[in-house]
């Protein structure tokens, strides 16, 4: 018998696209709502829904908010710089994926 069989198996829920509320996102990243709102104003993350009460964020926002926080805290990058850095990093990531698909890594 495999030792793993003895552990209880946890079943989580998949965070579907555009399902996180502002509160959930802030809780998940340990940040204040003001910080997230300023990220939205800089269009670093883009929620669905017009009014702040009905904002819904994607799972990908979790990654961007936390990256943004680290860039700000560790490197002292301001919001405009964070926006630029994250966009360039994302483009780099896409290019790397593209390279891999072409089999030239």
């Amino acid at each position, binding site marked *: 018998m495999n030792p*793993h069989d003895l*552990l*209880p*198996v*946890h*079943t*989580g*829920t*998949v*965070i*579907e696209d555009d399902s996180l509320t502002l509160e959930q996102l802030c*809780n*998940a*990243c*340990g940040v*204040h709502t003001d910080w997230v709102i300023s990220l939205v104003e800089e269009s670093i993350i883009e929620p669905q829904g017009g009014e702040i009460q009905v904002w819904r964020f994607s*799972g*990908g926002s*979790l*990654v961007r908010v*936390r*990256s943004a926080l*680290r*860039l700000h*805290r*560790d*490197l*002292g990058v301001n919001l405009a710089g964070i926006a630029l*850095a994250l966009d360039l*990093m994302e483009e780099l990531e896409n290019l790397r*994926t*593209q390279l*891999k*698909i072409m*089999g030239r890594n």
Partner: protein
Amino acid sequence: MQYKDYYKIMGLSRTATQDEVKRAYRKLARKYHPDVSKEKDAEAKFKELGEAYEVLHDPQKRAAYDKLGSNWKAGEDFRPPPNWDEGFEFKGGFADGGGFSDFFEQLFGRTGFHPSGQEQHGFHVRGQDSHAKIYIDLEDSIHGATRSISLSSPQMDAQGYMQVKHRSLSIKIPKGIKPGQHIRLAGQGDPGSGGGKAGDLLLEIAFNSHPLYRFSDTDIYLDLPVTPWEAALGAKIKVPTPEGSVDLKIPPNSRQGTKLRLKGRGLPAKTPGDFFVVLQIALPPADTERAKAVYQKMQQELDFNPRLSLGVKQR
């Protein structure tokens, strides 16, 4: 306990000015920041750098550290001399808590660590959500699976010290999950304080690289080697897909790099991805007389110049 040479870590001389310390930190932080860097060990180096900066940018800590003298070598076994820190007062407020070296803690203590934000306010506070990235195989997503993951996280013990806790969790990988998606495990994050609920554990999904397939979002790519005659004349070929092999029709006059799409045979997400076959034409080696003869025949029979567009006259 090993001595750490904070000047060496930052590439500075002992006489560096506070401005130089700051500039060196900024430069190295960009180089090793885990979000930006592709360097190996970036995370460990960034941590080490953070610790060095914590000491050297604070005039009091730097003075205390300098007092240890410059005869120590990095890695040398170290005990602080008695009363070395007499007369110094260290302020708290360290960067991120958790993870400075024993050397640092021996010198400056651990009292500076503040639990992140909310917990200080007191009662019935829900624990923080914690995050981890896990790597799964393509097959786990195609069929669904149960995987055991091991996590280590810094946690506060009852005395307020940081301890790195290791634990294993068995989790269900839901069918059709794609890279970049998150799974939320309720109540598996940091424990709450004052009877508050525990936070959640958020797992970001990434795929291990696969011997056959490559991924882009929900699409899967396969390089398919074909013979020149299969590409030229067309053929029916068996190709592997994650859900079993399928018969693929290669249209006549296919070229190197032609992409053939099998709709809906990518990852089984809500909108399933596609499966792309990329043709790679393989040339048979001309290593026998017969093979050479065939190539020579092609040379004589086919009027084929692949370099027409280069505009150079061929003889």
